């Protein structure tokens, strides 16, 4: 049986880590444990942030918040919404997609660099992370970054923590920047475009000075799974506009006029807009209760639809696109076909595919994260060694993270 440690302080964390090093007994770092695939799977002891919870400082006028790593994301968002602020990067919630439970934590959000639709214009979780406190694999309590927006004092270790999937250190506290919640938001919907036409329409929208803050394409095969089927018939290419009401309506007019040359155009009101983009963020179309493999693929925006078209000729896939077409959510009919998927990504100019869902045995047999080549993996390994010389942090078995 694996032991679950949930320390109350950094000092206690440090003791646990030192003891684990002494006993050569690896630790798996856990936040809310919203992923099941690795939970206990490797039989490692768990180092949990569950008891390191609470907002430490929130200063709305400075648009920053400091919270302990185990603070539930819900608590963070509740406090922010009281002051009409938000996390700009729209962290995705994978529970429905993966069929898991648990409560996502703010530390887990940064540890996975989880970023949603606004990412392609407003940055990823890593761009919002200003500072961290962590305990490294030697049990040292370290702080990096700070709480101001601009900071180039030394190496930006906070960036390394974002997306480190528990392989480098145990984060105890994170400080991040916020943005005001836009006064209003609406969505311009262009109907019935094929994937290639949609890519062109989205590129055109992004070339305009209308500040599109979400650009997704939902092909006919998935369209009915969004907004309870209320989107107009045919594929839906959706473009989000946010900001002050007067400004949003001016921009919507401009965008609508430009999009009319691509296809029939409609709009969604703020309520539908909020729901739609939450569903896109959380991969609602593939939250189907199955274990069919789901890839999260990042490529250049114009390459997304070409990748899917190429794969369609060889195997059964279903897909939709976010980030102007550059983020492809791909569900396979049967096997993950990792080799095929990655071969085409490479042929189309490069990018990466992460297998987010599949049956446990399939996961175990698949290279779930994109191999990065010898030189970069050697660097990753050397950096890991600098944080965790004894290799005590087992990493996320579910993601196959080896760095």
């Amino acid at each position: 049986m694996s032991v679950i440690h949930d320390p109350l302080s950094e000092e206690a964390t440090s003791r646990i880590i030192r003891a684990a090093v002494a006993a050569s007994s690896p630790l798996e770092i856990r936040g809310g444990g919203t992923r099941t695939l690795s939970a206990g799977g490797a039989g490692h002891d768990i180092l949990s942030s569950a008891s390191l919870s609470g907002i430490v400082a929130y200063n709305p006028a400075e648009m920053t918040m400091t919270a302990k790593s185990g603070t539930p994301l819900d608590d963070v968002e509740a406090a922010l919404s009281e002051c009409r602020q938000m996390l700009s990067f729209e962290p995705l919630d994978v529970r429905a997609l993966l069929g898991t439970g648990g409560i996502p934590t703010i530390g887990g959000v940064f540890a996975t660099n989880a970023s949603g639709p606004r990412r392609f214009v407003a940055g990823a979780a890593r761009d919002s992370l200003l500072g961290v406190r962590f305990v490294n694999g030697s049990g040292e309590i370290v702080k990096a970054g700070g709480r101001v927006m601009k900071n180039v004092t030394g190496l930006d270790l906070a960036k390394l923590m974002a997306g480190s999937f528990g392989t480098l250190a145990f984060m105890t506290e994170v400080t991040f920047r916020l943005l005001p919640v836009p006064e209003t938001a609406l969505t311009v919907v262009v109907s019935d475009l094929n994937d290639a036409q949609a890519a062109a329409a989205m590129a055109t929208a992004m070339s305009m000075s209308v500040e599109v803050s979400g650009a997704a394409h939902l092909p006919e095969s998935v369209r009915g799974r969004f907004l309870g089927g209320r989107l107009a018939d045919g594929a839906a290419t959706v473009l989000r506009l946010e900001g002050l009401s007067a400004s949003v309506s001016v921009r919507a007019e401009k965008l609508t006029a430009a999009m009319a040359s691509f296809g029939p155009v409609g709009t969604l009101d703020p309520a539908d807009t909020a729901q739609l983009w939450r569903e896109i963020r959380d991969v609602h179309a593939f939250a189907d209760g199955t274990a069919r493999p789901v890839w999260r693929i990042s490529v250049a925006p114009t390459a997304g639809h070409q990748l899917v078209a190429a794969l369609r000729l060889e195997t059964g896939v279903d897909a939709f696109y976010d980030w102007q077409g550059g983020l492809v959510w791909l569900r396979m009919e049967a096997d993950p076909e990792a080799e095929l998927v990655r071969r085409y990504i490479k042929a189309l100019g490069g990018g990466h595919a992460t297998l987010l869902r599949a049956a446990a045995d399939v996961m175990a047999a698949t290279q779930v994260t994109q191999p990065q080549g010898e030189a970069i993996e050697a660097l990753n390994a050397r950096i890991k060694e600098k944080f965790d010389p004894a290799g005590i942090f087992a990493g996320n078995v579910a993601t196959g993270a080896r760095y």
Partner: protein
Amino acid sequence: MEQIGFLPPKAAVLARRDEIVGDLLDLLPEGCLVHEPRELVPFETDAFVSYRRVPLAVALPETTAQVAAVMKYCHRYGIPVVPRGAGTSLAGGAIPQEDAVVIGLSKMSRIIDIDYANRTATVQAGVTNLAISDAVSPDGYFYAPDPSSQLACTIGGNIGMNSGGAHCLKYGVTTNNLLGVKMVLVDGTVIELGGKALDAPGLDLLGIVCGSEGQLGIVTEATVRLIAKPEGARPVLFGFDSSEDAGACVADIIGAGIIPVAIEFMDRPAISICEAFAGAGYPDDVEALLIVEVEGSETEMDDMLRAIIEIARRHGVKVVKESQSATQAALIWKGRKSAFGATGRVADYICMDGTVPLSQLPHVLRGTAEIIERHGLRVANVFHAGDGNMHPLILFNANDPEDAARAEQAGNEILKLCVDVGGCLTGEHGVGIEKRDLMRHQYAEVDLNQQMAVRAAFDPQWILNPSKVFPLEGRPAA
């Protein structure tokens, strides 16, 4: 006042000088190596001119392969390497040392690819910041980070320092607009990080390279984000009777959920200096000036400005001056962007770069004034107020060593004050040598050790720009 030190030159390297020059001449095409003592002088410093060191030689490669060859050679013989863009660093980041080979990127100044559909530009590292915006401007795009030095400074230097600019409040600094790099590691290996696809898996190496001051490798190419130009932009001048009022107004604008593209601050001395230089039409009867820029369609700008003006009125704004034309807008910015140059014409100055939480702005402005007064100096404050990034320009007389020492001392005290109120030593100019010995004020020993350990993962022998960023004592053994 003690002079900032450099690592002692390696005698073994100095002794092999001629041999090294000969080998480098073999590695590089003709005209790509500077080694005549007289010709080396222009490379002896950067914009932190109080310190100078003539390097052993300066390599000016034309290709990534040549950078790799020189790097590999220097690595093999333990020769320090100092990467250099345009040498506009204000922190001494590009100052060489006697035993170093400078690798200058000035010949690698080609724009490789402009891809509007994917909103990216891929450029060689020696391309200037402004050249990117200039190249894409006719098609309605721009590259957002805009340091005042943008005419001269290179994208490689911007990455080295994670540079910012006036318009970063809305669009972020270099790291937020950088999608990928090609770089040469210390042993000559060439790697590519990131690219047109966002958020590569694995550790965020791109994130750690940006702002690493030439200590982790040499960037030879970069892929950056292009953004569609706004329909219009309009700066407005606000004059206040006190710096406190102006500072409080900034905090309230941000607190109200309004994010203009830029909020720039100038105090009275800065206003007079800039006005005398640029004739920008700044009011002369106010103690503090804010330049607030909004952008969008006419309606949007009107809307936003109305809200901002209302907030300014609550803080007793004395003068509100909206620009009526593109020429006026350009003039307003000309005044601000020439602040350093204009100051340089009236006195020698050193430019501080601490960043503080917004709520601390008034307190730190007061503290700065006290410190300056105590040292019998003068200061002009001109800075990016929206993100708390302060630039006190401390005026002094460089011909008077005592005055210079006082200025340095006052600067250090101001930076410590920034750290003590929860800020940091440098918001966009970098540590270089200038702030190196203050690092222990901001970071505890374990914090610095962790950073140095990561540095060593890239450069175990400390060959790359070794005199910079980290205090010389207490470094891990190579």
